[in-house]
């Protein structure tokens, strides 16, 4: 029996508050480098610098007087504003998602690294050395790692302790009984998106684009879309795990303490459910049809399209009931 689509009734818990302002400040800091560093360079080495210097791939004129009007007429001012908006607006829209905030800190650091490297190189040597691009790439990778560390430890998500409600399907699991459920799904939409992105990536690389970051980003995006085209859902004693069959190292697990209960719905609930956690939750939705829906302790959902949603939901609730009603769940 499928349960009709209903809104998640649990209150959305703001567990992201600890460290949020710090993550916001770190995210917003990088684009400011684009304003501060050229100004500092011009102030310190104005006479030694050529008429035009490059930060990343952005040309900046140095002949302007050090006035506010002079600097806001520079192209980097607009770029910095756009970059700030591109980082801060997603942060604000994911105000309660510390995982997304950490990713934005990393993106910010990655964006700031080439600017910082260019600034340092211009300070040391007014003519750019031939190894400046490899130096930028290495520093970008290091900056991503530093960004991850700087974001700090993320707050722990809330945990559910109550047994599933009586109206959801529940499989009776005997004490000591072990069970696993496996199913996989295809997404034609993801495959199509991957093909289009792969085309863009090849086209961008073949035209000799000098912005390597764009090619790398497109390639990464393509790989992620391909990985999401075929996924496998596994339910066992450790929780509910989504694995990418073509990138098996990539997986995401919902541990049982994060789950309030599971439902089988005749179709995925409204909202955007993707690999990354969104406002409504996350998951893999491939077209219309039944879906396993987990009500999570933080008020969001996990959704996975499968024709065997009823069995999957019953097994999850079976695990939860046994664990939370004093059973001896193992495995």
């Amino acid at each position, binding site marked *: 029996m499928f349960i009709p689509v209903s809104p998640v009734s649990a209150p959305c818990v703001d567990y992201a508050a600890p460290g949020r302002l710090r993550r916001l400040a770190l995210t917003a800091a990088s684009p400011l480098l684009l304003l501060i560093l050229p100004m500092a360079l011009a102030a310190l080495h104005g006479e030694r610098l050529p008429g035009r210097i490059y930060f990343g791939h952005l040309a900046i004129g140095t002949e302007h007087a050090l006035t506010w009007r002079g600097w806001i007429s520079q192209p980097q001012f607009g770029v910095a504003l756009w970059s700030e908006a591109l980082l801060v607006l997603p942060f604000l829209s994911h105000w309660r998602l510390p995982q997304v905030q950490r990713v934005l800190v990393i993106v910010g650091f990655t964006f700031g690294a080439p600017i910082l490297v260019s600034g340092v190189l211009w300070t040391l040597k007014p003519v750019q050395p031939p190894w400046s691009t490899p130096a930028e790439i290495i520093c970008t990778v290091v900056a991503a790692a530093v960004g991850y560390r700087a974001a700090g430890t993320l707050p722990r998500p809330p945990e559910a302790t109550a047994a599933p409600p009586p109206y959801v399907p529940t499989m009776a699991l005997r004490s*000591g009984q*072990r069970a696993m*459920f496996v199913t996989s799904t295809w997404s034609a939409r993801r495959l199509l998106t991957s093909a289009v992105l792969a085309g863009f990536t090849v086209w961008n690389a073949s035209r000799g684009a000098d912005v390597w970051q764009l090619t790398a980003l497109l390639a990464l995006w393509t790989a992620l879309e391909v990985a999401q085209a075929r996924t496998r859902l596994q339910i066992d004693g450790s929780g509910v795990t989504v694995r990418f069959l073509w990138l098996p190292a990539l997986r995401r697990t919902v541990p049982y303490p994060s789950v309030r209960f599971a439902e089988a719905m005749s179709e995925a609930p409204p909202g955007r459910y993707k690999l990354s956690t969104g406002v409504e939750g996350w998951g893999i939705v491939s077209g219309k049809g039944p879906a396993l829906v987990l009500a999570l302790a933080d008020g969001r959902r996990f959704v996975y399209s499968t024709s*065997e949603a009823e069995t999957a939901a019953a097994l999850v609730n079976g695990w939860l009931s046994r664990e939370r009603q004093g059973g001896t769940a193992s495995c």
Partner: protein
Amino acid sequence: MLITVDPSSAQPLADQVAGSVRAALAGGMARPGDRLPSARTVAAALGINLHTVLRGYQQLRDEGVVELRRGRAAVITGTADQFRLQLSAAADEFAKAADHAGASEEEALAAVREALRAIRA
């Protein structure tokens, strides 16, 4: 596909693994062409020995239910006998219920014969 084992059951674990796959096929949860999860995955998820899972898979291969190839996933064959599997799954369920009720083999078989006679009369 749902695979369950109960270490406290008298039935060997390998038979339980094979029985789960048969039940999935009989119940329509698995279809010819579907891949079984790798033996390593099943062993890790259920906390049982890899060779136990492989023995279960070999039983299914011997019955012609799955095709096993070295280094590749076990695939459910198109020739899997749906009727025999359904019968086997129903018999498994009945055997479990009879065992749970404490019936002897003769009593269980007599109950089946009686039920069949009643239906066909």
